[in-house]
């Protein structure tokens, strides 16, 4: 009891002092009483503000799948995010190239982080982040990999008023019908992937082809499949002979693949991701599907080529957000690859690139806003300031918080043609993002309120 009353009295004392300070400040009185962090006093409390940024450090809550179907990709993303945080705290030249106002930390505060495993399950993702918000007063959160998780975290972000940076998320919904004021996405998605790879497919295979789809049964799978089918049927007169919808993490694909083998398709469009993609491609080979049908991976999967093994990915077309070999064109990509591989021993995949850039752009937005007050940070994002990055100049669309960035079309290499152990893909085209994107409201995006 004694302790409680003592704490209470100290709180009362602090409150009184603060009020006196505020009164003096508004009265134009002695600047001695100006609060140390002007921003905290200038804005009302919202979400974890100002509690999360009142100390010497701020906390970033990360949720990645570290087990389950997307575990390998989740680890890569985590490495990207952690490298960015390390660079932000050190004021590394790579971060400064993206966020020129950064010195060390964000607004001079050290960035700390915590990570939890979401197994690519929305419930786990929401629980993880909720804990980071309540216990650590996280000022920003990052996660995804499964778009189902990204969409769930979008909603959590809007409700809790804490900014959410989506990691890998390919669903149109993330910045489409499920977009929120508090959510931002860096990577390419169903629409841009389809618009990017579609013309390449028509050029490669011609018009009027028959396609079979293998689609994971959730928002990512459905929207990517639809975007692909819409483009190919409208522009190339392709017909869909079957769409095999399969559960996330299916242990076996034989029945789906038999249907595809018997469907008479000429092109096999595999929308699966993570280990599901690895397994379904290996089994497609076992069932002879790849001998009769051309495989296309519309939304490339980090580590796919090295996991699938052999020559299975030789000649396969895919669209992606990043492949390390674009470094010849972009100096920041070269810098990022060098830093990443020095630390982790392999060239970064696109999940790592996405998370690194997301953290860097968040630092830039906070520095531009001059405060952690979320509505101001969001407005800084919404100015659509152009930034340099590993994929050239990028900027956010204010209407749906989607980054305007290039789509990269790659073609798998045969083992014999590989010039190094990580030379898995040939970069065919780097397409500017803006012309590939839908109109901001086309997928029903309504961002919601700032406060």
């Amino acid at each position, binding site marked *: 009891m004694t302790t409680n009353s003592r704490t209470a009295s100290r709180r009362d004392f602090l409150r009184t002092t603060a009020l006196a300070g505020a009164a003096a400040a508004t009265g134009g009185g002695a600047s001695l009483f100006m609060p140390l962090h002007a921003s905290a006093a200038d804005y009302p409390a919202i979400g974890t503000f100002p509690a999360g940024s009142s100390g010497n450090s701020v906390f970033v809550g990360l949720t990645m799948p570290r087990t389950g179907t997307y575990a390998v990709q989740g680890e890569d993303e985590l490495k990207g995010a952690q490298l960015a945080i390390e660079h932000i705290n050190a004021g590394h030249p790579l971060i400064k190239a993206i966020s020129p106002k950064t010195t060390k930390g964000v607004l001079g505060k050290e960035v700390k982080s915590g990570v939890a495993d979401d197994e690519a399950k929305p419930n786990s993702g929401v629980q993880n982040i909720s804990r980071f918000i309540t216990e650590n007063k996280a000022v920003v959160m990052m996660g995804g990999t499964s778009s189902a998780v990204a969409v769930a975290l979008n909603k959590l972000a809007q409700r809790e008023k804490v900014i959410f940076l989506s990691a890998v998320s390919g669903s149109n919904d993330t910045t489409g019908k499920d977009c929120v004021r508090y959510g931002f996405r860096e990577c390419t998605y169903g629409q841009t992937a389809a618009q990017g790879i579609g013309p390449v497919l028509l050029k490669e295979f011609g018009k009027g082809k028959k396609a079979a789809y293998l689609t994971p049964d959730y928002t990512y799978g459905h929207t990517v499949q639809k975007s692909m089918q819409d483009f190919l049927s409208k522009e190339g007169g392709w017909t869909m002979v079957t769409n095999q919808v399969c559960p996330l993490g299916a242990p076996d694909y034989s029945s789906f693949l038999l249907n595809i083998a018997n469907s008479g398709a000429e092109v096999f469009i595999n929308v699966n991701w993570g*280990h599901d993609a690895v397994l379904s491609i290996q089994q497609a080979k076992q*069932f002879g599907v790849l001998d009769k049908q051309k495989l296309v991976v519309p939304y490339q999967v980090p580590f796919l080529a090295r996991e699938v093994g052999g020559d299975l990915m030789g000649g396969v077309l895919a669209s992606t957000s990043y492949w390390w070999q674009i470094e010849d064109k972009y100096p920041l990509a070269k810098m990022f690859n060098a830093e990443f591989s020095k630390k982790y021993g392999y060239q970064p995949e696109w999940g790592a690139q996405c998370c690194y850039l997301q953290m860097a752009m968040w630092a830039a937005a906070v520095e531009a806003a001059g405060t952690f007050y979320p509505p101001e940070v969001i407005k800084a994002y919404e100015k659509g300031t152009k930034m340099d990055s590993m994929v050239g100049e990028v900027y956010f669309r204010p209407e749906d918080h989607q980054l305007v960035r290039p789509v990269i079309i790659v073609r798998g290499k045969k083992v014999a043609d590989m010039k190094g152990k990580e030379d898995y893909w040939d970069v065919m085209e780097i397409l500017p993002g803006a012309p590939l994107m839908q109109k901001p409201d086309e997928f029903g995006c309504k961002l919601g309120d700032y406060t």
Partner: protein
Amino acid sequence: MPGLFTWANLVSQMFNGLVLGALLALISSGLTIIYGTLGVLNLAHGAMFMMGGYAGYLAFTATGSYVVAVIAGALFVMIVGVIMERVIIRHFYSRPNEDQLLVTFGLSIVFVELVRFSFGSLSRSVPPPPWGVGVTQLGFMLYPTYRLLVVGIVAVALLVLYVVLYRTRLGMIVRAGIEDAVMVDSLGINVYRVFMIVFGIGAMAAGFAGIVNAPVVSLTPEMGEMIMVQTFVVVVIGGVGSFPGAILGGLIAGQILSITSMINPGYAYVMLFAAMTLVLVLRPSGLMGVRGRD
């Protein structure tokens, strides 16, 4: 997709269902004989399936021999099973079912994380043996040769299990134990020694299935969790504790998955659980189950 609903595709799918079902039957039979004899529902059974795959993978990388890999995978998991029974499980025979579930669930997490710690999350592949590579023309369809072999291998394994359970003294004791463990005990038979052997055999069935299945899938630490759910469904459909029930359940589950996927793939797993629910409602002890144990 109406285009897929053809006789040719139906036959292909039914055949594929048989292959899927055979494998499920083998894994489930291990789970069901352990439960039937010991009364312990081993939630680490899926992890043992996975460990069989990884142990076989290690043996394969060392020797390059498929046969050595299969033997190593099965034996390793059998040894793990025997140690697990000796050191941990036997202290739980007289404890409530919840404790048994918790301890086996805990062990399963330990096994999965140990494998993840040692091998990482990147998947590993075991190639099929040279005599199982490629595709076989069956007349009505092309089918991966190795999957055809799996049916044969599993059939032999199930036959061996059948002989052990129904044609040997040990089997007689095991089956008697399933019916009435107290009576067997009072007849002067060392039930605990039998329990250890049964646990070893049940674990070996999972490990054997794990390595035999390895060339069909690629190995990940979680592969056992996914198969565990299906195994439970099979056991419930077939009748908990019934060896023939596990085989029947496995074959039915395989057909449900395959045939539903032809009509609407999104419902394949839904139908599997619907079938389990139906069995639970109409015949709670399963298709070939006996009345519940005490």
